């Protein structure tokens, strides 16, 4: 590297025409560290918190290894203090009119603007990222995020009426993160009135600086609290009774996978290598450097991957003017990996790109959707039709057509599959921190005694349940799977009692095998249903509503037998039909076009189905809840596996007869049986894309626990009964929000 050699003279440079160092002075970052005596604590309630007797870790310059400061490690009581401070601040902050919150956020944006140099030099110094990336990308975007969310706060009372802030939000950051990722999450939270406790990994001063900037605004010191500590504090933060929601924010972009069509493979690879050869690497604080370094750990990871790939027979291309010593790693292009080699499955580390060929667009789509990750992708093609088809087909949160890496505060950013299911930015980001007004806050329903290993494992055996009176209620018997009624795999039945405790009838006792069959049937029906236009979906839902009305008498009497008043039963049936029609109508008005500052061309905000959605329905409002959940799911293009109310499944099964006749086979599958057992089967099933659970607190806890294993988006009621007959609930926007996921499709234009 030039800096380590003796400085060449102008005369020499005249011949070589090489680049020289363009060092960015980081004196202000060091001066800021000096104000803390190079001894960083936590920033809680507008004050530095530096408790005694804590472990500390050094914060080092990742390139020189120079010790910049030492950072205290938090312990559980520091977390408690931070959550308490945030809780106190929440009372004032959430009570403010939106306009005042907007004002405050704007002041913070101004504050960042004033100290932007400090911010970018500190970030680059500590993380080793190229300073121009932070200076030209992250810092302006951070300000834009604050400004955008200030506007959202201003219009909150009007636009977000019927929603209230959740409370204290816990944000856990992964070891390699950029402060921008934190901004994406705290801005919407603060805008809607939540307060935040951020747990940052050890030795990351930038969030502390941001918290200090926010704290120095004076008025609301406790809205943003930052504590730094080991990952083991995550569960401590999550289990604090005051914390209403925990958001986890993953690592910044790693390596990439590149799929190139065979017909342009050679040409593309040649151009790629040419371009890579011109990349410059070096110390992040150099203004003319394309890529910095991300520390020794990232270097080792990349090196290990490349070595493995080479040993598995891959071609490795490395180029670029990058210093050869650790922690610098040159941009690397890996190709010709044998299809079955472990490296094709492993996550690609930064700064490695793995290229593989494909023959047809369809094949590319299958490969791309076959990966467990789903954050973002870009499609490069001059054929717009093809690019759009791929863009719609990719199962990721963000797709750029003929562009890459564009971000904007107005565009929701999120992911699916293992990349998580939460959203930041845009309207979707706001709802992450809101709940419908009147819903109870998160209760400490968490039970230490729940045995995850045995929950719902065994089905209690069913025996004949006493005298059958009256006409045999045999008709709706069986499980609706793949469009027709089937006998359960276990070949046993479960008795259903009416309100008086008399036997009402038998329903099938479904089990793991039936769930597997149902999920498979739902998967088979999915492509057809997704391909239907919203209009066609609406037509079917309306037809179902008509069929339901025809059955009104039967349904009413069934409900009555289960203890519902005649009047209420009539209302329930009527509301159910209305729900089907309402969701049918809503299916036609989804998604919209965003116009983004600085971008020529639209960004499409698409609402895409989750896929196969499993729904465990509540016991209350046995028909209405079943129909509401079903209608919302279908309207958004999902195929469903439903477990109807445990106490009163018969009205739902009545309706199944119409569904079997009207709906395409496999679109709706209904499995009755032991709810805990079925819930277990669904929660642990790898191929169910999302799960809604309405039932006991224990069941909710189990579902959330299981989802941590397979990263399935879940929605649970935590044992709280819902008022399904009220607009805010049954037909509410929350149901609509949950029933689909957002995708942002960027379409830059120009000729």
């Amino acid at each position, binding site marked *: 590297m030039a800096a380590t050699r003796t400085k060449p003279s102008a*005369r020499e*440079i005249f011949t070589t*025409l090489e680049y020289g160092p363009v060092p960015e002075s980081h004196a202000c970052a060091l001066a800021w560290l000096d104000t803390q005596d190079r001894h960083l604590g936590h920033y809680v309630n507008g004050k530095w918190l530096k408790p005694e007797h804590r472990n500390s870790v050094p914060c080092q310059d990742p390139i020189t290894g120079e010790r910049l400061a030492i950072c205290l490690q938090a312990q559980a009581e520091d977390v408690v203090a931070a959550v308490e401070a945030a809780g106190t601040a929440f009372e004032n902050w959430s009570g403010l009119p939106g306009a005042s919150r907007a004002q405050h956020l704007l002041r913070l944006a101004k504050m960042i603007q004033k100290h932007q140099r400090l911010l970018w030099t500190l970030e680059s110094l500590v993380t080793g990222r190229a300073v121009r990336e932070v200076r030209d990308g992250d810092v302006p975007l951070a300000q834009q995020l604050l400004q955008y969310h200030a506007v959202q706060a201003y219009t909150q009372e009007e636009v977000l009426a019927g929603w209230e802030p959740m409370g204290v939000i816990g944000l856990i950051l992964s070891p390699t993160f950029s402060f921008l990722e934190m901004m994406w999450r705290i801005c919407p939270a603060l805008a809607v009135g939540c307060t935040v406790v951020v747990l940052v990994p050890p030795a990351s001063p930038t969030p502390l600086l941001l918290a200090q900037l926010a704290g120095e605004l004076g008025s609301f010191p406790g809205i943003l609290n930052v504590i730094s500590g080991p990952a083991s504090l995550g569960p401590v933060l999550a289990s604090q009774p005051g914390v209403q929601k925990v958001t986890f924010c993953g690592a910044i972009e790693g390596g990439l996978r590149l799929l190139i069509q065979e017909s342009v493979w050679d040409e593309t690879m040649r151009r790629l290598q040419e371009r890579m050869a011109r990349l410059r690497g070096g110390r992040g604080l150099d203004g003319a450097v394309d890529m910095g370094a991300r520390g020794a750990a990232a270097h080792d990871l990349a090196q290990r991957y490349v070595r493995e790939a080479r040993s598995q027979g891959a071609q490795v291309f490395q180029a670029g003017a990058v210093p050869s010593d650790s922690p610098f790693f040159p941009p690397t292009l890996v190709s010709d990996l044998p299809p079955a080699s472990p490296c094709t499955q492993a996550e690609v580390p930064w700064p490695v790109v793995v290229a593989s060929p494909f023959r047809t667009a369809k094949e590319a789509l299958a490969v791309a959707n076959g990966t467990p990750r789903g954050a973002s992708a870009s499609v490069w093609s001059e054929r717009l039709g093809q690019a759009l088809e791929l863009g719609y087909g990719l199962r990721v949160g963000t797709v750029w057509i003929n562009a890459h890496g564009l971000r904007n505060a107005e565009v929701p950013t999120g992911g699916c599959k293992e990349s998580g299911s939460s959203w930041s930015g845009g309207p979707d980001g706001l709802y992450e921190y809101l709940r419908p007004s009147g819903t109870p806050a998160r209760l400490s329903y968490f039970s230490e005694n729940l045995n995850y290993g045995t929950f719902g494992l065994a089905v209690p055996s069913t025996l004949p349940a006493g005298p059958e009176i009256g006409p045999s209620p045999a008709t709706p018997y069986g499980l609706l799977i793949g469009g027709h009624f089937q006998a359960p795999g276990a070949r046993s039945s479960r008795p259903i009692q009416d309100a008086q405790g008399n036997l009402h009838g038998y329903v099938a006792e479904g089990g793991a095998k039936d769930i597997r069959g149902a999920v498979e049937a739902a998967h088979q029906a999915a492509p057809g249903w997704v391909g239907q236009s919203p209009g066609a979906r609406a037509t079917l839902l309306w037809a179902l509503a008509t069929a339901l009305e025809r059955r009104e008498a039967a349904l009413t009497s069934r409900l009555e037998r289960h203890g519902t008043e005649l009047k209420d039963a009539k209302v329930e049936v009527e509301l159910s039909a209305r729900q089907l029609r309402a969701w049918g109508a809503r299916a036609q008005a989804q998604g919209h076009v965003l116009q983004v500052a600085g971008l020529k061309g639209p960004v499409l905000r698409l609402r895409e189905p989750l896929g196969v959605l499993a729904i465990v329905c509540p016991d209350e409002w046995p028909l209405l809840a079943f129909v509401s959940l079903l209608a919302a799911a279908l309207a958004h293009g999902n195929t469903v596996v439903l477990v109807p109310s445990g106490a009163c499944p018969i009205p739902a099964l009545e309706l199944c007869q119409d569904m079997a006749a009207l709906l395409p086979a496999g679109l709706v599958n209904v499995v009755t049986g032991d709810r805990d057992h079925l819930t277990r089967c669904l929660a642990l099933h790898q191929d169910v894309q999302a799960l809604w659970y309405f039932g006991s607190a224990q069941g909710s806890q189990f579902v959330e626990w299981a989802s941590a294993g397979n990263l399935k988006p879940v929605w649970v009621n935590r044992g709280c009964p819902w008022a399904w007959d009220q607009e805010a609930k049954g037909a509410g926007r929350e149901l609509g929000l949950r029933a689909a996921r957002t995708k942002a499709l960027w379409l*830059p234009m*120009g*000729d």
Partner: protein
Amino acid sequence: MSARNRGTELDLSWISKMQVNQPAVLRRAQQIQARRTVKKEWQAAWLLKAVTFIDLTTLSGDDTSSNIQRLCYKAKYPIREDLLKTLNMHDKGLTTAAVCVYPARVCDAVRALKAAGCTIPVASVATGFPAGQTHLKTRLEEIRLAVEDGATEIDVVINRTLVLTGQWEALYDEIRQFRKACGEAHLKTILATGELGSLTNVYKASMIAMMAGSDFIKTSTGKETVNATFPVAIVMLRAIRDFFWKTGNKVGFKPAGGIRSAKDSLAWLSLVKEELGDEWLTPDLFRIGASTLLSDIERQVCNNPLSWDKLTSVFLRKKRKIPYWAMRTREKTSSDLPHCTQTSAFIQANPHLKWADWTRERECA
């Protein structure tokens, strides 16, 4: 000079499928300007290098033999001797790459350069510059006459009508004829990119011009409303690279029009370095068409901390924005006193003069 581009047969398949992704080009153009800066020694060296790429140009209706003479003198001695000495560059024989004038002034330029005893090539614009809206016959004749007068480089403008109506064969044939009329003189083809409508057209026109045997492709005449811009340059440079990959022929690149500041010139150098590599950074393959750029480069070399410490000149310390060459013509005959002292004395004696007056003064002289 390196081997000339002989051109190739017209192959429309090289351009028919081409589609330029304009948003991506804009993004790249934006990045490249922010990412590559040079400072201190590097800046001084790069600026001096930029001087060697300049086609020092005057294309005005009021050009006369006297200002052509001054121009040629400036081409020979682009940077003050004392400045070069401080940078230890005085023995490099630093000159601009060429002078560029109207056909009628070629004789003046050739004579002036001969008198100065240097071999700087004279370039002439031709073919109905700047609009190209004259008959082909007269356009060809114009080239021949300029070559006869001693121009060794001809900057021709293409017929934009042919591009906008997609008559690629006709465009190829025309440029082919230009090339023939040039004989041994080098052909620089001006695409007038500001009038081509789209980046895709810029790529196609570049490719056609290279297939027809242009030694250089040049962005603009300097007379259009939009001149040399970075996005256009990226497209042209990529076309040059594609042509090189296909045929092995290296074609030069010349941005022209609107390049006035030293900072701009550095950005152009780094753009070529990034897109084509160091091998293109020679006067054979890279030129900058400019008339006022040189004065700013000289000023920036002065302001560079390296020269800063060593120079004693009063007016330079004050960073007065007076291009040195404006004074040079006035002083060169008078005495052997150091230039700076005399110039500063002049300025101190005429404090009311502003830069505009200065130029007028010079023109009158």
